[in-house]
């Protein structure tokens, strides 16, 4: 399939107190995209638009080559969707759900499903009503993964999971990527996991995409630069440097376009140049864009 797995162009969705605006996003087969943003930024709305649960006010959405939401029935044949707020049908057991999904999807892999039941520590006889949040998440992940869908759309898929469960789940996601024709789009607050397994990162804040790029490039560009300025010296004009914090002679700069050239420009007073992890970048990025937008 040469199609991009997800393609959104100029998508707009308005609600009374919130608008998703000019959203463009694309996911290639074989790719993992980490979708990051503060609460209320529009991550869930974007994922629901991808699934056809809601329709855009403007723009185009195409998933697995199918226009959404019109062709959602065909698209969803090959998409596994899991969201932390999703629940199973209350008066049925997990086993019933497995049989139900199996009867609808011929690609259901019973052996894999059985493995996942053990790995995720679930019990098929258990009634959906009695499942904890974490067990619900694992159950819905199982139902999605066992079908081996081409595309996985996941909204906070590690919510309520203890570290062991999280590790198991992340392992299953990475197993999916052994096949370069499958892809994953997932939103998560867990920046450690996002940083680890994403190929691309997309940042969203207040309904707009503020950044989208290759993860390694991203991590390469951001730095904290610690400078010690002796009395009487000052820093030259520095491009792409923001977040300046002064503490006496000690100045901390944040940049999103680091290069050796920039370091040279700052001069001899650089004490240390630190890489930033995704969580730190996330916070700095959001704050920077809010400042730029004057909000």
């Amino acid at each position, binding site marked *: 399939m040469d199609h991009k797995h997800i393609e959104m162009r100029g998508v707009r969705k308005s609600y009374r107190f919130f608008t998703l605006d000019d959203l463009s996003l694309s996911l290639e087969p074989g790719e993992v995209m980490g979708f990051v943003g503060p609460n209320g930024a529009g991550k869930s709305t974007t994922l629901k638009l991808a699934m056809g649960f809601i329709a855009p006010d403007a723009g185009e959405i195409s998933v697995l080559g199918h226009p959404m939401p019109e062709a959602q029935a065909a698209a969803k044949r090959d998409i596994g969707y899991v969201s932390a707020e999703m629940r199973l049908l209350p008066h049925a057991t997990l086993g019933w759900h497995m049989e139900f999904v199996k009867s609808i999807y011929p690609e259901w892999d019973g052996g894999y499903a059985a493995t996942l039941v053990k790995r995720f520590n679930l019990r098929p006889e258990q009634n959906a009503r009695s499942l904890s949040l974490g067990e619900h998440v694992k159950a819905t992940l199982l139902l999605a993964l066992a079908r081996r869908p081409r595309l996985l759309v996941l909204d906070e898929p590690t919510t309520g999971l203890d570290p062991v469960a999280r590790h198991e789940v992340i392992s299953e996601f990475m197993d999916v990527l052994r096949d370069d024709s499958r892809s994953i789009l997932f939103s998560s607050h867990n920046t450690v996991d996002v940083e680890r397994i994403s190929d691309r990162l997309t940042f969203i804040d207040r309904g707009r995409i503020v950044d989208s790029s290759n993860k390694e490039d991203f991590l390469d560009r951001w730095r904290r630069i610690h400078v010690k300025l002796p009395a009487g010296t000052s820093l030259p004009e520095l491009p792409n440097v923001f977040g300046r914090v002064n503490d006496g002679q000690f100045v901390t700069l944040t940049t999103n376009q680091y290069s050796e050239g920039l370091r040279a420009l700052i001069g001899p007073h650089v004490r*240390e140049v630190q890489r930033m992890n995704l969580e730190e970048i996330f916070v700095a990025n959001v704050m920077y864009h809010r400042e730029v937008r004057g909000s």
Partner: protein
Amino acid sequence: MYSGINISQTDARPMYLQIMEQIRARIAAGDWPSGKELPSIRALAAALNVSVITIKRAYLDLENEGVIVTRHGKGSFVADVNGLAGELQEERLEEHLTRAVEIGQSLGLSEDDLAARLRRAQRNLGKN
């Protein structure tokens, strides 16, 4: 399978560098002899629970260093080990020297002071 290779996210070094280092170490030690086929990028990604792009970058950089060879469509293989052990040591020396310079700077030592300290250390080591 490759549970020996461990990527720490709390390590200051980026993931791709850690992977490169661990691969180089295995090659230098002889555990991965020259000509041995490396795991496919996706297989290693899945085994380590690390993004494909990180493995791709590690393999690319290792190839640029001449440590591995990638044959299009066939996979990646360990290159000739000649001089690799030496290369590894060279790298370690560079790292240590850079660190010494950094610490020297923070202590306010001049270049000459630092050089003097180095000579003193060499003499001390020579005595033992």
